[in-house]
């Protein structure tokens, strides 16, 4: 019976990972929406809601700690619980990066965009895919799927390079665009960090399943 209850508690932790993942994904979505629509009110809402993401992350980390203390789990169970705490701090940071994009939107107000946003939404979409896939890989303890997430980070890095090069060119061409270009560069940087955190989750999946922590992050940033 205690074993059964323990399994339920582990499942609840995994549910927490799903829940946090969904919240962070929504935050990224809304942040991009706020950027595209230049919706300062929406951006402020995202910054506000990030506190809830943080609170849930903290709550789940606590749940992990009490489970460790009460059940003294071993091997796979132990690694699973430890991984959840690590994933929680990754997701909490992803939420911060989404809120970071929202803060930039607030800062930009209705400052005109220096270039149409083409690569940026693609980058956001890839980062979200990586997050969703990393969560699924963790749930399934699927090592191959986890490695695929790590590989997907390369495309995000490539998009970041592209955006970086484009914006530098815009700035060189017209120094009055330096400030608005820098704002967009920060947005791209936040997205790049979100994708990196998804890679971390994928690494944790491999650790949880095998006991070894691979270094998937070949990012130059």
């Amino acid at each position, binding site marked *: 019976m205690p074993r059964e209850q323990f399994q339920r508690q582990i499942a609840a932790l995994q*549910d927490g990972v*799903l829940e946090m993942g*969904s919240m962070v994904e929504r935050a990224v979505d*809304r942040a991009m929406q706020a950027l595209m629509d230049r919706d300062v009110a929406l951006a402020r809402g995202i910054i506000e809601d990030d506190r809830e993401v943080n609170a849930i992350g903290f709550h789940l980390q606590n749940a992990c700690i009490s489970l460790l203390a009460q059940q003294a789990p071993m091997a796979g169970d132990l690694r699973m619980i430890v991984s959840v705490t690590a994933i929680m701090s990754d997701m909490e940071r992803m939420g911060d990066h989404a809120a970071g994009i929202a803060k930039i939107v607030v800062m930009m107000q209705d400052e005109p965009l220096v270039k149409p946003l083409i690569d940026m939404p693609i980058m956001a979409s890839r980062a979200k895919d990586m997050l969703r896939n990393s969560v699924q890989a963790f749930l399934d303890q699927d090592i191959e799927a986890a490695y695929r997430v790590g590989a997907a980070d390369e495309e995000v890095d490539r998009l970041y390079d592209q955006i970086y090069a484009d914006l530098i060119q815009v700035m060189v061409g017209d120094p009055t665009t330096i400030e608005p270009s820098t704002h967009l560069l920060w947005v791209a940087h936040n997205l790049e960090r979100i994708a990196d955190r998804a890679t971390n989750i994928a690494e944790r999946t491999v650790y949880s399943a095998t006991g070894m922590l691979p270094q998937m992050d070949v990012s130059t940033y």
Partner: protein
Amino acid sequence: MRHPTVLVALAVVVALAVAALPDPFRWLAAGAGVLLAGWLGARPPEAARPARPEAPPVIDFVHELRGLLALLPEGILVIDAQEDVLVANPALARILRRPREEMEGVSLIRATRDAALAQVLREAAGEPRDVALGDDRIVRAAAARLEAAPVHAVLTVQDITALRNAERARSELVANVSHELRTPIAAARALAETLESGVDDAERRARFHASLTHELERLGDIVERLLTLSRLESRAEEFDIRPVEVAELARVAVARMLPVAERSGVALAVHVATPAGALVLADHERGLEVITNLLDNAIRYSPRGGTVTIRLEADGDMTRVCVRDEGPGILPADRQRVFERFYTADRARGSGTGLGLAIARHTVSRLGGEIWVAEGSPGATLCFTLPRADAPA
């Protein structure tokens, strides 16, 4: 004891009624719920039926519930007190784009994969809430709590993306029509007032008159296009459909747009990959209008020195016409919306009326073809098909 299914059916009705929308489907669904509740209520109570000790009543009940909820067009999720999903109906699986069989017997969040929907169900606050799904869709969710074993609470979910888009399109239409009409009206009024107060110089007077005529023509053009669109939408427009040589259609369109292209410093190229003399079924003037519209757009979004390419090729029973430019391209999210009235993906550059592609879509559809934005970059490629005249009917 009342049959528990009655309670659930009533809960569904409550949740649906709470999320009241001007939508006939909702009332149909609510009506179905009431009927089902009545039908179930009229059935003999559990005790009066022969006992079936081999089947646990909860399983039986869930099975019955699943059958009844499968009929509803609304997405419905039923959970027990542990927040495990008892029933997820097919409509919900469709709306959330998840395999239905993976949504039952698991936790709420595993079934929905959506923290906001889970929150609606947990709060069961009665007020419906609009929740954005990740892919630019929006659903209206409402929940009711029963706290009757085994059913703890019920969530209803309705995809209101189409409704939201229609609302948005309507308000945009009004705003855009007013905006588009205001500029030429203001210009015409200023010119007319100037002429009224008297202009001594005959040459200037003639120029003002010409400008006034130009503004009125622009107004007429917008109104004409709106009427064309309206006629196309109500299918009142007469089409004279006959075999037309598609390469000739393309060449005439290119010749028409050449002056515009030259002014913008854009080259036009035609690639004919269809057999010589290939015929399509089309209304000559309407078909021409579609191609010129696409060319006009492509030229407008092209950088100076760029090339706009029109390509004709066979596509099964159809002939495909694609127009490619070297401009900034069209975002995946805009690929469907560019065919909406007044939708210009890049408003800063959209100097057109924003009606051309909407007219093109309706025309192509009336001619039995399809129009779409092709994937790939750089630049944008818009393609449409027309039925081949020599294809077997």
